[in-house]
């Protein structure tokens, strides 16, 4: 199995297309970091304008931790689209190229090939996330320094001490990996249904947009299905940055406000991954390879 995964990884990283996503993420992050470095103070003043009269914040608000949070808010919505470029091409791209029949005439079952391809696509996804984490978190920490993380939510503010922040990012990135692997598996499923790459790539992107809209609309009819949609859970990495308070309304270091919500989201996303990958295996096993 490992030899199949190595073959798939070799193919993924031999293609120029693979590096588009890495380049796009780097370009976006560098542009945002540069903008905030040059004009960050006015951005921070804009953020604080509603609470300046009631709250005085000491220290450096616009530090590496806040920059990373801002970047994640912006990018974790768009990274799935970049993931789809590779994941949705894994099977359909080979069908289109005609190379699927070369793979399926080797002495390994189709199930093994599909799993190897999914694992390779997942490794690509995780590497993309690590790249994102490196640029968004560590480079931001290096450029902007560190301090307490001050977050403004819709009707309250959260202040997390700087020594209580880093592990939350680790948690958030691990959670984000589940979210992105769900996208990977969805792209993979659509890829197994098609013999050209464009359809599954556009299909994956469309599905994400469609279900994200359903997840955000507050219409009673959709409320019933929302808990089962993967898009409802994909953004719950933010839960790592909601902290419990004691009776004096003081933050409890090392706490998370709603751990069950995170657990539920991970279970729902994992079930989606299993469902999508299993369906891909069944489809490919039954398929006549005509390309």
């Amino acid at each position, binding site marked *: 199995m490992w030899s199949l995964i190595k073959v798939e990884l070799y193919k993924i990283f031999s293609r120029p297309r693979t590096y588009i996503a890495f380049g796009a993420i780097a370009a976006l992050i560098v542009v945002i970091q540069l903008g905030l470095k040059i004009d960050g103070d006015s951005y921070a003043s804009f953020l604080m304008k509603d609470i300046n009269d009631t709250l005085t914040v000491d220290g450096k608000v616009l530090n590496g931790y806040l920059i990373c949070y801002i970047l994640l808010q912006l990018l974790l919505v768009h990274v799935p689209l970049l993931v789809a470029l590779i994941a949705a091409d894994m099977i359909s791209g080979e069908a289109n*190229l005609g190379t699927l029949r070369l793979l399926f005439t080797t002495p390994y079952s189709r199930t093994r090939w599909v799993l190897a391809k999914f694992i390779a696509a997942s490794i690509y996804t995780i590497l993309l996330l690590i790249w994102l984490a490196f640029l968004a978190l560590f480079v931001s920490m290096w450029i902007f320094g560190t301090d307490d993380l001050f977050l403004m939510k819709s009707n309250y503010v959260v202040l997390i001490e700087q020594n209580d922040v880093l592990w939350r990012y680790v948690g958030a990135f691990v959670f984000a990996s589940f979210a992105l692997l769900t996208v990977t598996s969805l792209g993979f499923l659509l890829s197994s249904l098609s013999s050209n790459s464009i359809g599954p790539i556009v299909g994956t992107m469309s599905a994400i947009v469609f279900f994200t809209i359903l997840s955000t609309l507050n219409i009673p009819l959709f409320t019933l299905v929302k808990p089962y949609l993967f898009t409802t859970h994909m953004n719950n990495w933010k839960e790592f940055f909601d902290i419990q308070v004691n009776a004096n309304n003081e933050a409890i270091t090392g706490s998370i406000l709603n751990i069950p919500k995170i657990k539920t989201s991970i279970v729902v996303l994992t079930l989606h991954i299993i469902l999508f990958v299993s369906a891909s295996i069944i489809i490919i096993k039954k398929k006549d390879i005509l390309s």
Partner: protein
Amino acid sequence: MSVIKVQNISKHFGSLKAVDDLSFEVQAGQVFGFLGQNGSGKSTTIRMLLSLIHPTSGQIEIFGKRIEKDREAILEQVGAIIERPDLYPYLSAREHLELFAKVRKKKIGEADINATLEKVGLAHRAKDKVQTFSLGMKQRLGIGIALVHNPSLIILDEPTNGLDPQGIADIRQLIQYLAKEEGKTVLVSSHLLSEIEQVANQILIIHQGKKMVEGVTKELLDPEKRIVQIKTTDDANVLKVIAAGRFSNYLLPRGEGVYLKIPTREIPLLNESLVKAEVALLGIETKNSLEDYFLQITSNA
């Protein structure tokens, strides 16, 4: 010993019968020529042999094992190219062989890869990306991928497609070398009899998914025998007369018309017996060769 044993396989795509009740056997060490027009069902049959397409009915045994049950053990001993030489444009010839060597269960070293590159004449272009290759070079690399793990059975579907005359001659030579020097069993398909008759010792012709004729190449191409078409207004009666008499063994399968492969000296006797049986005979037309017959049955459809 049968290396391939195909029994009554059919493949239907909706109402289309791509392969219809086809049976044949390929013996060890044979070069088996699989002939048919484009769209006759050759590639569908080959894909069924390689487990790429699931047959609608029938049974396939390779090395005495059922393909649907022992697929992995069978494919370990099979090398194949199917139709076009589709490859990864961003990889080199060497990278292709290295990748496909990795997905074989036996150990394939650098020396084996170099030997394969030499065998298919690509050693000097080993490091070049496939996107810079001509169709002929891609075809040769495809054959290299089929050979790199030293299989016992080689299945080549239209291996000379897109090749220049020298390329065709090279492939022919390679097939003969593999069969004679290395003792491989080779199944090679083509839509040109002229390509197959020089290398194959057994020929099967299919048309519209059905077996038309099968036999030893030397016998089928025997200049002492002629292929004749009996032209009549009543095919059924002619067939009845032939089936009842001494000429039944010469009958060739055909959808329309009556064809026989018959020793030249017996043609007058055939004529006489048909006249005696008072069939509505329009004439007996002699074909020059198996090529004529092949063209006739495939172009009349």
